[in-house]
């Protein structure tokens, strides 16, 4: 059957044509396209990888910065707390010191007052004594003309002084 019988001429020309096409396409056609597509694929793959890496790194940086912020916050809290404590302590100390001082002053004042009072008392006594002496001198001069009256007076005076002293002491 004619259709199933290969023709020499057609075989020859087909071999030639296919050979030439094969040579040209294998040399200048497909490898060029395949290489370019391959390179592009590799580039895209590496770009995607780089993007992933950048994402991971960014995440890490974000985490880091969050950690830093947290740490700073904690530090601030601590500083504030420390400052409050310090302030309280200083205030308390100052208060204590002030009250001590006040007490000291009060005590000192009391002592001084005591001293002053005693001195006044002492002075008063001396003056009273001096006055009494002077007064009694005057009185005595007038009254004490005789010996008897003098003795009477002295006794009386001594009695009076005694009573007086007892009164004061009481």
């Amino acid at each position: 059957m004619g259709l199933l019988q290969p023709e020499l001429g057609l075989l020859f020309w087909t071999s030639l044509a296919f050979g030439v096409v094969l040579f040209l396409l294998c040399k200048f056609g497909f490898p060029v396209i395949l290489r370019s597509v391959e390179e592009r694929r590799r580039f895209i793959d590496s770009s995607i990888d780089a993007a992933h890496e950048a994402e991971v790194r960014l995440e890490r940086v974000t985490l880091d910065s969050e950690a830093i912020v947290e740490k700073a916050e904690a530090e601030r809290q601590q500083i504030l707390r420390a400052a409050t404590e310090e302030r309280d302590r200083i205030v308390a100390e100052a208060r204590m010191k002030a009250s001590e001082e006040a007490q000291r002053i009060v005590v000192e004042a009391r002592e001084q007052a005591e001293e002053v009072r005693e001195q006044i008392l002492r002075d008063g006594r001396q003056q009273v004594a001096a006055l009494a002496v002077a007064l009694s001198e005057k009185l005595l001069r007038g009254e004490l003309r005789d010996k008897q009256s003098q003795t009477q007076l002295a006794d009386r005076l001594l009695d009076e002084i005694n009573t007086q002293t007892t009164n004061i002491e009481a």
Partner: protein
Amino acid sequence: MRLWINILLLCALSIACPAWGQESIDYAQSEAVAAVAAEVPEHAEPMAEEQGIDVKTVVLDHIADSYEWHICTVGEHHVTIPLLVIVRSQSGEWHCFSSSHLHAGHEYEGFRIADEGEYAGKIVEQTAEGEVVRPIDLSITKTVAGLFVNCAVLLLIVLGVARRYRNDQPDAKAKGGLAGVLEMVIDSVMEGIIIPCVGPNYRKFAPYLLTAFFFIFVNNLMGLIPIFPAGANVTGNISVTLVLAMATFFAVNVFGTRDYWKEIFWPEVPTWLKVPIPIMPAIEFIGLFTKPFSLMIRLFANILAGHAIILILTCIVFATAKLGAAVNGAMSAVSVVLSIFMNCLELLVAFLQAFVFTMLSAVFIGAAQHSEEHEHETKQIENNINN
């Protein structure tokens, strides 16, 4: 019995739907399809002859090769392009002349186109003893011319696109237009066929397989375009598919590994299958040739059948011309609808056959690049395609 039912079924299917038939073809069955494709016009003949159109001649004239390229017939005038005849006569000298000299049975330089006999339609030479012999004939026939045109188209497309890629940097953007389409197809062939079927060695064979794919695809598509300079039945010609199958045969066997050859001459089967009578080696050895043979027949039969069916459907218009306006009009409408359907189907087949040829070539090459664990996979793919 079953075989005959199968063949009958295939006959029916190849008339109704050749694409389906193409899926289930192995080489034995595809011979049947080829036979059917050639027989269909014979059945149509008696009816056609009465009505003045010889469908068989029309179809066979198109399918078969010829020395001139017939474009159309206007009234009584045939518009043809004469082609170059190159023959070597018995005396050993080469003759080269235009085929227009041989038109209508004329004899030129001792050569003529035989009307009948063994060499009907071919150039023959009358020797001094009155014997009719066939000279060595390297004429640029219609198929060869169509082949050249298609090759030029293919080269133009692929090299033109490749030029755009030549100075690409890795960070160049993806191409649009034709380059984008071609890249997409190349990528799908690479990812879908070549890498999975050939295996780790795929880089070495990718250019060949891609060339085979695009060569067949472009030739198939050009065959579907009915207007000159396309429309020649190139891949539906057994010589062309024979060359393609031979190319795969060489790619398989020249680069076959030691394991591959061992698998053929000393396969892992019980020893009694190998030693006194080498049954398995013989089967494997025959298998070496049946594989490319099936490639050849599959492509040839599918494309041939496609061309034949579209032509027959078109001939319906003319065959029914004498049956009256109503019948003719109705049948013309049917013819056009069916032709459109068949053309769409043939578009699919054009792609599918290129795909299948490339895939089987890749599988055979992959099997010859063979390592033990690949074998199972390969067989599976092969079975899937054949069923």
